[in-house]
């Protein structure tokens, strides 16, 4: 065992667009490191994947459930990371299984 993670609260009474701002701001460095790693790996598999995803996913994300789209926007807003990268991270189970 290396450590035990912290516990955070997400307030579901807030509008989805505000829920994750504070948390993702506090952990923006960890989030950037993780997403950069995901993007690097995707690049290794095929250098066309990341540009395709970054271009298409923000538009396609609008077809996902609106509350979750807003939550991902709040993560993007809090961390300063691109919305497309956040969407990629949230569909990476499917995306990388492919």
């Amino acid at each position, binding site marked *: 065992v*290396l450590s035990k993670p*912290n*516990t955070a609260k997400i307030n579901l009474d807030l509008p989805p667009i505000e829920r994750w701002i504070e948390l993702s701001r506090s*952990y923006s460095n960890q989030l950037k*490191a*993780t997403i950069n790693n995901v993007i690097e790996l995707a690049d290794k598999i095929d250098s066309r994947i990341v540009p395709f995803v970054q271009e298409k996913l923000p538009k396609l994300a609008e077809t996902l459930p609106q509350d979750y789209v807003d939550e991902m926007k709040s993560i993007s807003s809090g961390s300063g*990371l691109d919305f497309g990268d956040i969407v990629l991270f*949230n569909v990476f189970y499917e995306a990388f*299984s492919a």
Partner: protein
Amino acid sequence: CTSIVAKDGKGGVIHARNMDFGLFLGFDFKNMTWSLTEALRPSLINIDFVRDGQTQFTSASFIGYVGIFTAVRQKKFSLTINERFDVDGGWVGIIEWLLGKHSAHWLGFLTRDVFEKCDNFKCAQDYLMQAEMTLVSPVYFVLASGEDPIGQIIVRDREDVSEVVTIGQEEDKSKSGSWFVLQTNYDPSNEPPFFDDRRHPGLKCMSELSSNAASGDNFISKEGLFDVLSTKPNLNMLTVYTSLIDIKAGIIETFVRECPFP
């Protein structure tokens, strides 16, 4: 991944899991580690989802991820997700989604929906069994009840349930489906491949670490389950964390894990 639901000897079940995460081509030969696994460890966090000042459900998650891989709704149910390696991916689901069919669910949002919408085990079970999914890689849902000693593996394809294994359906106490269910990343009805067999070591540990009540019922403690999940190869270089879920208390105890290069 390895997920286990087992009888606790007190009339309920304990739910535990190892989350293994890595990507093909992601091995870092310089440091002899899996780079995604290493990157995910610092971003692990437990999240209490709160409404009206009350925790609705708790998840073990990664910063930036709004979906659910491991979560509990106090006294009601808990859920863990294992990737399913056995089956060819449902590519058609992604293609249909890109072509405009947006009614199917993405995994993370589906599992989050279960916790947003369901207040009991039956609702969660029905939701997980019936929802249409955009799955590229089908999945195992491992579901446990906080009200009855029920643990269940739901083997999901994109549109259907292909198999269900439930505590109590198997008489041989050394097998999954007896007093516990144990799921790695291969279909329960098939043998796992020799190069990634975490099932048989897990089953052996469950037998050796279980206790036997006067009634003849087997059960295991939280510490025993932790030991099972700390035994190689169930603990391996891809293991990011181990979670022990107390469904009645609504608590997920999460441990960031590391397994050195052999």
